[in-house]
């Protein structure tokens, strides 16, 4: 049998609920110290996959390795060397922050004195040392999240599992928490699997992103590779806001290009290699830093709306109702197979 290459290695993993294939043959290799984000829409199987790694769910078939050891159903969660942060934080409501953080250490039967030292150390790291006597209900959302993180960090796990830990924070706090989380992960160097449906979070946090849909991994790669060279039309439209423009062409190919690579023809330097489209402008949204132009290409086969995401530096006057010539640099064009949706030759990273 082949030695597992990654620190966390997942081979042909399945989890079926009756006829539903929640996880349908996932292969993943996560390097030691890496932060891998599982990204996908709700119901894509990312949480089920994480729960199987945690041992909260039993795989229908397939293998999981952590640190070179196979983790099958006989290895209970406590023996897997993992720590998990839940979306709701799942703090014990009747315990103080101190008792919450100490709980995994007590479960390891660590001596009380050592427990105290480690809890205080973890709390200090997250700046919640003064809150240790409070119960979860007396803490704000951000403080609860820090208690949950402390509880995960305190026992030096081999792998962190994060299940949308930022989704309960308000937008402002989330950006700060994201930054802090990445810093923490780099500092500790602990292999981390992070589940989210938020692409901004995924792009910002992940060393690599595994995009999932319908129980399968669609693409694994660095945020840039996944964004610039989507492996198929699902990844192309799931990542990016607004999503990649897809335009069916004659000759059995779907053209894809990002809205931010779609310019009015006036700003293209002469001599640049571009593809042009005449766009009937339907609607314009001013968003401060950018301007979104929605339009229908002339001569398109089906009712497709293309979006141009123009930065505020592009001041070309464009009005709703007019027909305007737009252009895409040819190097920004991606081609997809119209039946399978997979990227054609030049789409591969």
């Amino acid at each position: 049998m082949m030695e597992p290459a990654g620190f966390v290695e997942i081979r042909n993993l399945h989890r079926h609920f009756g006829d539903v294939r929640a996880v349908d043959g996932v292969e993943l290799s996560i390097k030691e110290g890496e932060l891998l984000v599982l990204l996908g829409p709700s119901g894509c199987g990312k949480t089920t996959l994480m729960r199987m790694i945690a041992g909260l769910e039993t795989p229908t078939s397939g293998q999981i390795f952590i640190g070179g050891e196979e983790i099958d159903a006989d290895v209970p969660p406590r023996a897997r060397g993992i720590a998990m942060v839940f979306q709701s934080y799942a703090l014990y409501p009747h315990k103080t922050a101190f008792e919450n953080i100490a709980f995994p250490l007590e479960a390891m039967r660590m001596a009380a004195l050592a427990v105290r030292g480690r809890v205080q150390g973890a709390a200090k790291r997250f700046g919640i040392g003064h809150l240790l006597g409070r119960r979860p209900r007396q803490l704000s959302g951000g403080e609860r999240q820090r208690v949950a993180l402390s509880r995960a960090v305190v026992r030096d796990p081999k792998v962190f599992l994060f299940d949308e830990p930022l989704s309960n924070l308000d937008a402002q706090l989330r950006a700060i928490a994201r930054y802090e989380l990445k810093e923490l992960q780099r500092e500790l160097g602990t292999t981390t699997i992070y589940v989210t449906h938020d692409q901004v979070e995924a792009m910002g946090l992940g060393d690599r992103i595994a995009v999932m849909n319908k129980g399968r991994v669609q693409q694994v790669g660095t945020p840039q590779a996944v964004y610039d060279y989507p492996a198929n039309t699902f990844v192309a439209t799931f990542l990016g806001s607004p999503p990649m423009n897809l335009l069916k062409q004659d000759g059995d190919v779907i053209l894809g290009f990002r809205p931010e690579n779609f310019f009015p023809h006036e700003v293209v330097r002469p001599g640049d290699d571009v593809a042009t489209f005449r766009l009937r402008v339907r609607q314009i949204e001013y968003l401060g830093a950018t301007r979104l132009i929605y339009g229908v290409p002339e001569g398109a086969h089906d009712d497709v709306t293309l979006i141009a995401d123009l930065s505020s530096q592009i001041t070309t006057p464009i009005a709703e109702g007019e027909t305007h010539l737009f252009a895409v640099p040819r190097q920004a064009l991606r081609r997809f197979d119209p039946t399978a949706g997979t990227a054609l030759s030049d789409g591969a990273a």
Partner: protein
Amino acid sequence: MALPSRVSPGAAALAVSFRRRTLADREDWLARLMLAPALLYVAALVGVPFVLALALAFSGARAGSLDFAWVGWHNFLTIIPDPQFQRAVWNTLRFTLVSQVLVIVLAVSAAYVLSAAFAGRRIVRFLLLLPWAAPVALAAIAWTWIFDSTFSVINWTFLVMGVTRRWLYWFGDPALATIAIITVHVWRMFPFATVITLAGMSSIPQEINEAAVVDGAGFWRRLFQVNLPLLLPIITVAVLFGVVFTSTDLSVVYLLTRGGPYNSTHVLASLAFQRGIFGGDLGQGAAVALFLLPVLVVVAVLMLRTARRAEVGT
């Protein structure tokens, strides 16, 4: 404002009456009206007997006579040194406490079993609730057969299994009779406690238990450090209910042992019945019955306070 001419006079009248405030709009009066039947019921069937009992406890009233002599604390002073009364107080306390401890253990265990997914769970839940629904008198007849001196199925089972070699006379021996009474109390209260506990358990977020699993806690640690503390408020409600029901219960003792053998299993309720109704000393009976009242009032207040705060989870 004038009505548009198209509106017929009938419709106009309807519109006017529609605008008038009806009883349904007057929530202050509606509330009183709707509460009235319940208040009447409680006043007639609980309030009047209660006041009567209070009055009787301080009187020398006897059955078969209309005399109502005020005797002050005499009835209480008579019963307190009475060994049979002391025995009844002691029995009431220990029957209640022992049965409630057993009820908690059984109810939590049963709730654990019933919250697990298995085939036939609905049927088991239904069967478990039957004792709660069965009429006490009917159940007591079944239990008198189960503990019968000649036909006891328990004895038969024990003999066949080799648990005991001798025939047990359940109602002939004070210790065995105590066991029998507590058994029936537990059997009666535990379905209710199980249902309450089950409801409490289902309100604990699943993620909390999963977090405990991932944190490395085994079954007992999860039970004693996570689930039981979270269930505590709701179990308290079940226990306090159980305490009130069990300590004031007449039917089990009366139907099973009638206080025997040799008055060893009387509780306050059965002794009150014996003294007041059979003995005809209404005053003393009332005094016996009211003896636990101060304790139960405290229990009831605690119960209501806990019930109000009984919420599981964050």
